[in-house]
């Protein structure tokens, strides 16, 4: 798409266009944003998507239900466990499978661990986008601990396919539980480190506070979900509003903001890490013995019908809409991707901010282009 100068402002200055991306370090993937500027102030920000579009929804129509699980890993590739879980629960809802207790607990532990890993990456990347190079080293070091845990359980660091239809791939070992307990014991120390190094930094706070405040009605209209919406003061979390799996058994807080500026959007993630750790600790204590896989038929053939099931991933509401025609492959599979709709708010969020803050707005939206483009 061409960039064209858009005329003269009422104050007599000429608007000009600046291209950002698709190869730009702070777009977290291949996202292009066309900025229209009045001096240093953004007048219009137009996102251009699709550089990572692989046609996952079409591919699903040619795959059997279990075969599609690895594709969900490649949607939001920093929180694959949550994607696996959302997809598998959708199919289970369609087929009517009862998942064993132990598998439910393991699923919650994995999804929340992945939320922590994703938010750690977010904290580091935000610091990096605002010029704090050191912060990233610490969050990535700690995230690696979680990836090692996942590697132990599933055999891979990023694309797990660990959650399966009817349960999980295999049981977790005693070693895994010991290491997880050690991680939970270490986590408060890590958080203190981030507080001292990043969150408490005066410059970092000044860059985020009071920037990109948008009325909550606009965000609701834009279909924004997840931490970005909660920062504006809405207690909207599917884990509490429509508890899926066994989330209704755990006690945890949903952090919400008041102003809804970039700083609160950032802090939501920091606070959510602590709540996720809280959930994992409860799940570890309640972990029952037993099988981790339900008895499901070798060939999964759901009845004719359709299902929509949504989970709260680190980025918001991830929903799978599956239409079944009674065969082994979905007739139509649609994914409601949170990042896709969150990215739609770029123009609203960026209007009126300075050009240096565009990177900050993008960072706190936490887009994952694999998911947005699908």
């Amino acid at each position, binding site marked *: *798409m061409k960039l064209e100068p858009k005329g003269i402002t009422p104050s007599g200055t000429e608007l000009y266009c600046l291209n950002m991306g698709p190869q730009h370090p702070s777009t977290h993937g291949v996202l292009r944003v066309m900025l229209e500027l009045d001096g240093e102030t953004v007048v219009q920000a137009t996102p251009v*998507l*699709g550089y990572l*579009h692989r*046609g996952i*929804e*079409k*591919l699903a*129509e*040619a795959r059997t239900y279990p075969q599609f699980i690895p594709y969900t890993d490649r949607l939001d590739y920093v929180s694959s466990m949550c994607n696996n879980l959302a997809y598998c629960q959708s199919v289970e809802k369609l087929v009517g499978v009862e998942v064993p207790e132990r598998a439910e607990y393991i699923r919650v532990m994995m999804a929340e661990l992945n939320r922590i890993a994703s938010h750690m990456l977010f904290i580091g990347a935000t610091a990096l986008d605002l010029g704090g190079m050191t912060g990233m080293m610490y969050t990535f070091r700690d995230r690696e601990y979680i990836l090692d845990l996942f590697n132990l359980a599933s055999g891979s660091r990023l694309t797990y396919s660990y959650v399966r239809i009817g349960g999980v791939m295999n049981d977790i070992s005693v070693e895994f539980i010991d290491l997880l307990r050690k991680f939970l014991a270490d986590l408060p120390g890590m958080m203190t480190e981030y507080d001292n190094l990043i969150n408490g930094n005066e410059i970092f706070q000044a860059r985020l506070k009071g920037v990109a405040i948008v009325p909550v009605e*606009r965000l*609701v*209209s*834009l*279909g924004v*979900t997840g931490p970005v919406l909660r920062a504006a003061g*809405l207690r*909207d979390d599917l884990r509490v*509003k*429509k508890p899926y799996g066994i989330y209704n058994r755990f006690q945890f807080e949903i952090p919400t903001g008041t102003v809804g500026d970039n700083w609160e959007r950032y802090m939501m993630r920091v606070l959510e890490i602590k709540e996720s750790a809280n959930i994992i600790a409860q799940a570890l204590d309640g972990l029952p013995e037993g099988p981790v896989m339900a008895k499901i038929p070798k060939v999964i053939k759901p009845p004719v019908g359709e299902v*929509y099931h949504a989970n709260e991933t680190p980025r918001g*509401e991830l*929903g799978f*809409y599956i*239409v079944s025609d009674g065969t082994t492959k979905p*007739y*139509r599979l*649609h994914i*409601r991707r949170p990042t*896709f*709709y969150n*990215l*739609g708010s770029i123009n*609203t969020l960026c209007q009126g901010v300075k050009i240096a803050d565009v990177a900050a707005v993008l960072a706190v939206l936490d887009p994952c282009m694999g998911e947005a*483009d*699908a």
Partner: protein
Amino acid sequence: MNEEMMANGELISTPATIKQDLRELRDNPDYGFDRLLDVTAVDRGEIFEIVYRLNSLKTGRDLVVKVNISAASPKLPSMADLWEAMLFGEREVQDMFGIVFEGHPDPRPLLAPEEGFGFFPLRKSYVLPGRSGQPNGR
């Protein structure tokens, strides 16, 4: 349109009344569906089924609104002036199904390249070419 018609969380509308129905679902405080979370389509051969997914933040209620349009001339009024989310959502459906949303303020391709794919990938008439010569990517 009344409560009875949406008894099982699903409302079937028509292309002529869809805009009016959705506007009422949003503005009438009895319904109060302030969020349009998603829009998508299903290719049913002769017809395309458009699926809107509404949610109310106040009551937590969900509603699916479905409308069938003819596949021969697929067009529907745009909801982008009611919910800004449709500025993105409808463009995706447009790229994938070739459905025209009349009145959309920015109907450029979103996920497709600037000039479009040249086909509409999620229509059943588009068969995914496979590596081994078999259809649908197998």
